[in-house]
């Protein structure tokens, strides 16, 4: 079902990035990692991670201007209408054991679903570290930092060193876990979203070190609910919209399209980037 709702607030995050807040039917409760289909009237409809949620108050998405559609979305104002379908897809699996070592690793706009995850983890009393990376300082998506997260838990890095550590998220992560014992590695969980090549490398490290990893994938989709087949991942036939968008390292290992291919609107397989 599609709900047509008014935008209640637009927040400037950083260069070319905005968060958009709106209200949905109160009976709907999203889980971190889920997505929604956002209709920008007259323009397009695209899948967006839920980046923020406050019960009975608002839902939020965080959009980076990449093309015509994201530009139109980012330019919407308070009071403008959007259409929303969802929440859709599966979610980040949160462990029952609160003693797990938890890492949230986000690259660029990939921070969006992790932001919602971080506020949920905090709400239920989990401690965790965030590693946030971007090309340069003005592209770091702080995503109006959840006010209850202590900044000391967040590691920043930029490719050019203009903010935080110079280098990639993966390097920071490797550095931190280098002192971990085998038991500690086994007790570690990584949640990630970002450029797929980053997630591919991260999953290779995690598989090697026996670390549990959950990655959020993105593909072109029409329906968002398991019908159009455009988001199918070969060779397992898993659907990003229905079986995902969150996949565990064991699944990712078997998905040949991971980090490599997607399908365009015609259904043709093309390179990811």
């Amino acid at each position, binding site marked *: *079902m*599609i709900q*047509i709702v008014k935008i209640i607030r637009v927040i400037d995050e950083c260069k070319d990035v905005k968060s958009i807040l709106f209200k949905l039917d109160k009976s709907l409760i999203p889980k971190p990692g889920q997505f929604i*289909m956002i*209709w920008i*009237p*007259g323009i*397009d*409809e*695209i899948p967006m991670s839920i980046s923020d949620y406050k019960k009975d108050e608002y839902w939020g998405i965080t959009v980076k201007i990449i093309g015509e559609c994201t530009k139109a979305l980012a330019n919407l104002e308070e009071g403008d*209408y959007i*259409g929303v*379908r969802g929440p859709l897809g599966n979610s980040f699996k949160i462990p029952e054991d609160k003693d797990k070592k938890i890492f949230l690793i986000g690259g660029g706009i990939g921070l969006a679903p992790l932001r919602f995850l971080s506020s949920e983890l905090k709400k239920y009393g989990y401690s965790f570290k965030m590693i946030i990376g971007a090309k340069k300082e003005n592209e770091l998506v702080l995503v109006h930092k959840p006010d209850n997260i202590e900044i000391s838990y967040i590691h920043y890095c930029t490719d050019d060193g203009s903010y935080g550590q110079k280098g990639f998220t993966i390097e920071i992560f490797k550095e931190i876990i280098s002192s971990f014992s085998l038991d500690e590695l086994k007790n570690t969980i990584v949640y990630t979203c970002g450029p797929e090549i980053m997630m591919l490398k991260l999953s290779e490290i995690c598989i090697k070190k026996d670390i549990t990893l959950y990655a959020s994938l993105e593909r072109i989709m*029409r*329906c968002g*609910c*398991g*019908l*159009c*087949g*455009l988001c*199918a*991942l*070969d*060779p*397992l*036939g898993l*659907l990003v919209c*229905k079986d995902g968008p969150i996949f565990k390292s064991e699944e990712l290992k078997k998905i040949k399209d991971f980090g490599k291919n997607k*399908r*365009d*609107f*015609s*259904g*043709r*397989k093309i390179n990811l980037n």
Partner: protein
Amino acid sequence: MLNVKISNLKLKSPIILASGILGVSFSSMKRVIDAGAGAITTKSIGPIPRKGYKNPSIFEILPGTFINSVGLGNPGIEEFYHEIRKIKEYNFPLIVSIFGDTFDSYLKVALRAEEGGCDAIEINISCPHAKVSSIGINSELTYSLVQKIKKELKIPLFVKLNPNVTDICEIALAAEKGGADAVVAINTIASMVIDINTKRPILSHGSGGLSGKAIKPISIKKVYDLYRILKIPIIGCGGVYDWKDVVEYFLAGASAVAVGTALHKGIDIISKINENLILFLQENEYKSINNIKGLAHSYKTQEVPDFD
């Protein structure tokens, strides 16, 4: 118990994946077969790659009822040829749905799909949100196209019927006369949704086709009517969600059913339908699902209303 035969296609279940649903990649089609489908129909494939209409192009408008206007987005037969080859490695009955922009291109695409190794061709002459529907609303065009393709094709030819016509029986008879081996009834029903807030049609194309629960009674009536006049088998299509829907289609006269929209509930609904169909047949002491075909026709319906 669930074995059915459509033309020379032997299916281990009467459930066929409907065209347009998950029929892009070999891997998702294989999943549908693994879940227990008897055959797969691919997305409609045309002569060249086509992106189709922009989003919104599919959404649910009532529980279990969807509207769509994908606009025949497809990778084109040359690209899809390789997908057909890959699917055939798994050796399950494959029906390739095709369309063209001219009679010649219909034929070309059909023959290339046959060369790829598919088991039957379904011709889409009925997509309500694309120009090809103009064939499916005209019995002479339908007859000529079917005859032209049938003459050259070695494998069975199915025709997907357009419900957006005055008399579907007339078109179906033309398809049968042209040599069709089966008809698929029905394609989606022309429809539209307008948002009252923005005052715009929601689908990017404006209008689209309705599928799912709401169209089942319409489709059942079409199958019932077609069964009375056709000699060739009918594949019932529209709103199949559970085993009871399959039974209803068979009672109306279907020889198999296509499942599409219901898969938003998950691919495993197919295995549940199969299991429950077997239970139904056992409980009612039918040896085969074929034994219930057309049973609704043995009951007289009132032709003339009563007067005071």
